[in-house]
């Protein structure tokens, strides 16, 4: 099984991976030249992460079809240990370092320099110092991980990969959590590693970085390879990548609607939010936007752009520190300092992760629907259980929650029905402004259509509706107006008539130094 061409280090051919019969990858082929930096681009959910999990053995050999050939032989990895033994190391967006251990300990974690179970600390520290020099990190190996910034932690991750004698380094959104300076440093390092003969795969939404560093780029869409672009070609630019990323047709699965847009309902001015752990990082940078009554406004942004952080920081400051800015409703300044205040001021926010933040899964439908406004059903602190039942029952009927009774535990419901329970809960607070974060994530097509219909109906009632979504077709199908967010800033505002996927993707991938 020797590769015909020794300049090729990795060939993945016709990879198909299904989850419960639903294809996540339907025939992806990628080949990597020895010593190149290869970019992989695609929308959220295109299959990039799945592909990397197939490659690294997280999804073991046999759970997918297609062939992987690495470094001249066929790879049949059954676990991540198998692929690491071959020199494939993946560094995830969420760093996997132990905060209370030293840099040296982390570098050799699971790979300790030892004899008969006893660690040789002198060698460990010495080797660590050599590796740190290679990645250009000027820190004492004995420093604890929690005492260095996230940019330096990223370098420790790479040093850890070098300790394993890495041949293929996979970086998943390596700069998503880094500031500009750290990002530039990291990209330089990847360049240096290329000179040392290490092949890299870099997955990034930041096309500017991809253009700067990648030799070739493979674009994946809906689980298939679209094309591999040689970045040295004169026609290779960000526009071409974007076109390949989004080039699918708009599906006509949106209920018809005639917008009836009134006065301005909701406005946010100069909203600035800092990261809760790293207060030097801006998660929202001077964001201003407005929504009118009866209007559906979309927020487009790639993962890590700061859409959810923006929404949560507005909704009762449930995210971030050092928040400044003003919120207006009906032209009057309102306070949304606590969630309770935000709710009383008529704002509702449905979270993107309904299981973690939206529902009490061991509670029944009734208590979940009443949870955000149980006060409406109570007098002197005593809940009127019968009225509560009637309210829940009326939402079950009107929202078409498909289950026998409101005594069903929400943990037993399907994703679509769970989302309807979450929406019922927030409708019961009688909001004027709804912020819906990924309202159709993980929901089947039928339930999606119902939820689109509901969103239209809410707008028709004169409410201001904000929809945050990673699916551009969804935003284009629903919204009257779309804001694009990138790196915590609003980088574009497009009306329904002018909006298309390519325009949005341009704004969504705009970097800080780009002309606007």
């Amino acid at each position: 099984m020797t590769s015909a061409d020794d300049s090729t280090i990795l060939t993945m051919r016709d990879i198909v991976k299904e989850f419960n019969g639903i294809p996540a990858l339907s025939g992806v082929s990628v080949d990597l030249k020895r010593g190149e930096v290869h970019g992989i681009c695609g929308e959220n959910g295109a299959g990039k992460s799945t592909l990397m999990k197939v490659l690294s053995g997280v999804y073991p050999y046999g759970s997918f079809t297609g062939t992987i050939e690495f470094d001249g032989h066929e790879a049949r990895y059954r676990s991540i240990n198998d692929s690491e033994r071959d020199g494939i190391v993946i560094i995830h967006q969420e760093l996997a370092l132990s905060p209370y251990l030293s840099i040296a300990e982390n570098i050799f974690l699971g790979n300790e320099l030892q004899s008969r179970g006893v660690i040789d600390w002198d060698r460990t520290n010495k080797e660590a110092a050599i590796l740190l020099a290679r990645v250009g990190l000027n820190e004492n190996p004995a420093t604890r991980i929690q005492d260095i910034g996230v940019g330096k932690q990223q370098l420790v991750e790479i040093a850890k990969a070098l300790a394993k004698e890495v041949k293929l380094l996979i970086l998943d959104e390596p700069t998503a959590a880094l500031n500009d300076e750290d990002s530039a440093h990291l990209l330089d390092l990847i360049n240096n590693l290329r000179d040392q003969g290490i092949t890299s795969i870099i997955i990034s939404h930041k096309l500017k970085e991809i253009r700067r560093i990648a030799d070739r780029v493979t674009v994946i869409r809906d689980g298939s390879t679209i094309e591999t672009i040689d970045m040295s070609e004169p026609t290779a630019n960000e526009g071409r990548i974007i076109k390949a990323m989004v080039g699918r047709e708009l599906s006509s699965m949106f209920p018809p609607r005639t917008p009836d847009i009134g006065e301005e309902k909701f406005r946010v001015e100069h909203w600035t939010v800092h990261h809760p752990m790293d207060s030097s990082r801006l998660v929202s940078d001077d964001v201003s936007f407005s929504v009118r009554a009866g209007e559906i406004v979309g927020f487009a942004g790639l993962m890590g752009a700061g859409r959810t952080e923006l929404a949560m920081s507005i909704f009762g400051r449930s995210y971030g520190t050092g928040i400044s800015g003003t919120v207006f409703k009906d032209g009057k300044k309102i306070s949304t300092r606590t969630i309770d205040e935000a709710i009383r001021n008529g704002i509702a926010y449905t979270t993107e992760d309904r299981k973690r933040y939206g529902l009490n899964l061991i509670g029944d439908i009734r208590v979940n629907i009443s949870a955000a406004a149980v006060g409406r059903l109570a007098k002197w602190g005593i809940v009127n259980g019968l009225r509560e039942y009637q309210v829940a029952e009326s939402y079950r009927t009107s929202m078409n929650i498909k289950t026998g009774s409101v005594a069903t535990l929400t943990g037993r419901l399907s994703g679509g029905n769970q989302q309807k329970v979450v929406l019922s809960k927030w409708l019961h607070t009688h909001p004027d402004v709804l912020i819906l974060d990924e309202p159709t994530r993980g929901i089947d097509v039928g339930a999606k259509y119902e939820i689109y219909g509901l969103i239209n109906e809410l707008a028709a009632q004169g409410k201001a509706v904000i929809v945050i979504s990673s699916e551009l077709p969804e935003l284009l199908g629903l919204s009257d107006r779309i804001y694009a967010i990138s790196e915590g800033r609003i980088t574009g505002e497009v009306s329904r008539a002018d909006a298309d996927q390519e325009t949005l993707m341009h704004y969504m991938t705009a970097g800080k130094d780009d002309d606007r």
Partner: protein
Amino acid sequence: MSTISAQKPGSDGRRLRLNVDLRQFGILGALAIIVILFQVLTGGKLLLPANINNLIQQNAYVLILAVGMVIVIIAGHIDLSVGSVVALVGAVTAIAMVQWELPWWGAVVVGLAVGALVGVWQGFWIAFVGIPAFIVTLAGMLLFRGLTLVLLTGGTINALPAGFVAIGKGTLPQSFGTMLGGHDVVTLIAAIVVVIAFALSQFRSRRKQLALDLPVEPGMLLVAKIVVTTVAVLFFAWLLSAHRGLPIILIILAALILLYTFVLKRTVFGRHVYAMGGNLFAAQMSGVKTRWVNFFIFVNMGVLAALAGIVTAARAGGAVASAGNSYELDAIAAAFIGGAAVTGGVGTVIGAVIGAMIMGVLNMGLSILSVDSAWQQVIKGLVLLLAVAFDVVSKRRGPRM
């Protein structure tokens, strides 16, 4: 799954309701089996009138603590300090009566106030500073035990007034005399009133449910429930009435159980406790003021621990620094045996009460059999482990969430 239940409207809800009831019956059944087992093993001594009276008075403290503890556990916390609070409050009330010469009811008020202060202290650290309850109450366990030793300077305070002692040991006067060979009429009347009130409330809520087309339990089950309860209550009342009058502590316990069942099931506060235990993030994102709810949970626990301290001192007739030793473990065990979930979000007052009674019957039965106290601990430990293991395993077989 949802599509299947959509085809048969109502079926899912009914089945669920039945499941819940079966679970409660399960632990009630366990209690019945243990009672019968010890009745046989002890040759009928367990259910002698004097022993039933003792069972109630000896275990009153666990029942009171378990009611507070189950709320703490539902919210996802734990309280290790209650045993020490029992000792501290016992000492303070005794000092109030003997040294400050307050009337006994004044001392009770002082004692409850001390409990509330303890709750404010612990609640502050847990709710507003964000220190885990395990740590705060572990510190409290040492702190309040130490303060008790300081207050009592190593000695004991005895000779407490009779009015105070009656809280733990007293009975209502036998106002209507006795009948049928020495059975107290007041106790029997109270039992009949309880039985009628229970049956009426059951029928009333069923009528309401039916009027609103709510799913109801099968009629036979309801009748069976009422018949079993009636027989059990009248049987124990009959036995108890042969001893002396109606124990005062039994009235206090009944009031607490009713009150806290109401609080957990019917009030906004109770709803928030369950919501926080079920999913803290979801509760926060729904606008629940989780800090204040946590704070009040611990203030409430402090007050109930104080009440348990008063009852313990009253029954002992004095205050000692070693009072309430390891009571926290009894209360925690009772809540878990009664079906509270280790991860929070699940539990009932009545479950915790039954759990406490299981522990109480075990204690008494093993003592009558003069089982060595070392072995008593072994057996109680195993019962706790098996009860929670049963709960965990049965949940694992249930739906995955």
